[in-house]
């Protein structure tokens, strides 16, 4: 099925809503994205950043104010959603309440006038794929949310679309099921290798499933990258803060080459990896993840203001000059635990410091 996967290209895509109450709302601004065939591509961002709008433009439900959407290098602007060869899974499942599971999944195939025995075969393959083999006769109201969402997924998959779109498909499910279902979605997506655009505001979900993530804020692209790079090398403070926790501190470049730099942070100099050369004396902001703070290592000292045992980690908050430094100390059982009010010495792992 991999041969069906197609690339999706968004060119200068912009959407402005004209509303009575809020005037012009720039929901999506000048978005340029290349999505590779078979890629699992996630749109991530806080509520109202334009994820749904972007997805619905790809689907063809919203008209772009300007810009182009290319699927397999073909501009689809003039096509209605039913002609775009897409599959879509909605947040609220959107199963047809008057049809049973079989007929829900068969709906699109019947429209295409696929022969009857082939419909039966394909529906059962789809049901098997989402592990719902025994549910063919059920109606939507007799199923749990997770089961309904599996059926919705099967309904989208059975059409073998060239692009699969998800709009927060898991946000109506409870936390445990959410984790399970996202792994299912990823497993199935990998198996059939379909180009997938996935919307979520949950960063751990995005990290877990995506080949690539785009982070949006107020309709503007902040960063497009793999999950690892987004986490380790956030493009700006917004991304750093949005993806996981981040300590953001001030620093100064002492000297720099193309690949490494000496950065002075509060009197301590670190030799850190960088991606471009900066002039000596430049003020910079640096990002240090809580788990990259080395507890007990000489460098800085500060007072512990909060100490919480989390099981796999011991989490601290320190009052360090004007900042609150968050620390996540791995595997605490074998280590010394600091109490609130104690002084702690700490430092950073130089290779994990990221200069913005």
């Amino acid at each position, binding site marked *: 099925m991999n041969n069906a996967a197609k690339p999706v290209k968004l060119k200068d895509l912009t959407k402005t809503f004209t509303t009575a109450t809020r005037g012009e709302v720039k929901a999506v601004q000048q978005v340029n994205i290349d999505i590779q065939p078979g890629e699992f591509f996630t749109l991530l961002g806080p509520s109202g950043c334009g994820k749904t709008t972007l997805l619905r433009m790809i689907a063809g439900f919203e008209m772009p104010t300007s810009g182009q959407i290319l699927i397999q290098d073909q501009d689809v602007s003039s096509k*209605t*959603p*039913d002609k775009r060869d*897409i599959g*879509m899974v909605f947040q*609220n499942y*959107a199963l047809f*309440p008057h049809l049973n599971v079989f007929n829900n999944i068969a709906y699109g195939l019947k*429209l295409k006038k696929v022969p009857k025995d082939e419909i039966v075969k394909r529906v059962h393959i789809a049901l098997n794929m989402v592990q719902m083999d025994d549910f063919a006769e059920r109606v939507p109201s007799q199923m749990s949310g997770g089961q309904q969402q599996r059926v919705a997924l099967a309904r989208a998959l059975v059409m073998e679309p060239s692009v699969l779109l998800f709009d927060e498909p898991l946000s109506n499910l409870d936390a445990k099921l959410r984790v399970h279902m996202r792994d299912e979605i990823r497993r199935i997506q990998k198996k059939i290798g379909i180009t997938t655009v996935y919307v979520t505001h949950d960063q751990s979900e995005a990290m877990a499933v995506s080949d690539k993530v785009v982070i949006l804020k107020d309709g503007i692209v902040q960063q497009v990258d793999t999950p690892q790079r987004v986490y380790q090398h956030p493009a700006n403070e917004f991304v750093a803060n949005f993806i996981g926790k981040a300590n953001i501190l001030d620093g100064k470049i002492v000297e720099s080459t193309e690949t490494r730099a000496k950065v002075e942070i509060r009197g301590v100099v670190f030799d850190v990896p960088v991606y471009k050369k900066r002039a000596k004396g430049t003020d910079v902001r640096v990002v240090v993840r809580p788990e990259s703070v080395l507890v007990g290592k000489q460098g800085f000292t500060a007072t512990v203001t909060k100490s919480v045992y989390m099981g796999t980690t011991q989490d601290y908050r320190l009052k360090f000059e004007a900042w609150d430094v968050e620390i996540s100390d791995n595997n605490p059982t074998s280590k010394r635990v600091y109490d609130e009010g104690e002084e702690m010495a700490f430092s950073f792992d130089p290779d994990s410091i990221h200069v913005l």
Partner: protein
Amino acid sequence: MSIQETGVQSLKRNKFSEYFQQMRFTFRDPILLVSVLSVLIVVVMFILIPLFTILKESLFHQGKLSLYHYNEIIRLPYNLDVIWNTIKLGLSVSAVGTFIAFIFAYAITYLKIPSKRLFKILSVLPMISPPFVISLAAILLFGRSGLVTRTLLGIRTDIYGFWGLMLTQTLSFFPIGVLMLTNLLQNIDPSVEEASQALGASQWKVFTTVTLPLMIPGIANAALLIFIQSLADFGNAIVIGGNYTTMAVQIYQQGIGSYDMAGATALAVLLLLISMLGFILQHQVIGKKSYVTVTGKAAKDRVLIRNKKATIPVYTFCMAISILVMAMYALVPYGAFVRLWGVDYSLTWRWMKYVFTIGMPYIVDSTILSALSTPIAVILGLVSAFIIVRKTFPGKRLLESSILMAIALPGTVMGLGYVLTYNTPPLILTGGSVILVVALVIRSMPVGTRSAIAALKQIDPSIEEAATVCGASSNKVFTSVTIPLIKPVFFSSLAYAFIRGMTLVSTIIFLVSAKWQMLTVAIMNQVDQGLYGAANAYCLVLIGIVGLVMGAMSLILKKMSIDLGAGY
């Protein structure tokens, strides 16, 4: 300054091109374009243009712009009487009708009493019966040769006039109020009232300090609705009004009786204005979002009131009215077999034979025309609701308000509008069957649109979008997803449109011709001539046809397990 101006101008142009683009996007789909256009054309041609024609004609006299026709109204005391009659009647019927409706609704939702099913059925009955069954029965009971007045009491009083109209209109229109208020009362969360009780309020106090205040918007709404119905009522008013002429009747008598269409227009405009005022007020009341609708469906069942001080008087009251209404409904079929009401009560087949021979064309025409208009009205109703709820296109607001407004349009005004508009070139429709079908469609479609709008708003649009991404074209989405999802509304629209077609009298009385006749008009003519036996027989046949069709439909529906009452 000039920079600013050009800025504004370019912004405007931008807006326009943006708008234009949006339209092109929406109408990528030719079927949608066709649907929007057809609904727009129907609304413009058969609602807006006729009204406009009336307004135009009312402002011209002998080819010149003038207020002559309005002056005539003020000049002739008779016309002022007619206006006052209409308003007085409307207010009285509205007050009494709302009161009865509230008691019925309260009894049905709050009290522990028997016969609730009867009360519920009774409250829908007048809506599905011809408009003058009640009037006819009132004449049979209290008329010059009435059962009560002449045969029992031996008096020769006259029911024709204000009191007769008051009685028949109240009995005809209070059920609409019952339906509406029952819905609202059911939506009051019982815990609000329980909270009041827990704070020490007696049941009476709960009623006066919580239930009643919560219901005030609903009661106002019901009162306005009944008021509008009374204004528009033609069937009862012409049959039982006697010398007490209302505007709806006067428009007809002046326009058709005295061939003075132009003279009728000014009165029609006035009636229209009063109705519209009622309609607008009503929508403002609804717009104020009564507290009741916010809470939605009641979370749990209400503990019914068993206090005998409340249940006994309320039950007696409801039962008395129910018996009256039932007696009236029973009288008409009985009267169909009575030789000469008031004089000779022996049984005869004469009237039934009469309607099935001489009256046959009326029966056939009425049934054919209603059957023709039903699917058209239903499809237009659903399609218009669909595009109003789900799509954006130019003129949408106008379309929506025109259709909803049409619910409140008095039938005689519409009739006058059609005659004025479509008996002159460029398009002559009067005399044929087309205009009759048009009238039947326009008189039933708006109610279908309204209930379909309400139903569609309950359905998540993503279900339809899901069908679209599965490859369904927009008409496929409509037929395979939208309609099945609002099936109850679909079928009740069918029933409503057919009943409405069979029972309509006000609009079509302007439009019937020698070629095409209608059953209701035949009944009216018989009553006019005092031939109650034939009138009763016609009524019986009419009820029979409606009953047959409804029966067939509910049989089909039972197989599909759908509740016919849902959606209305």
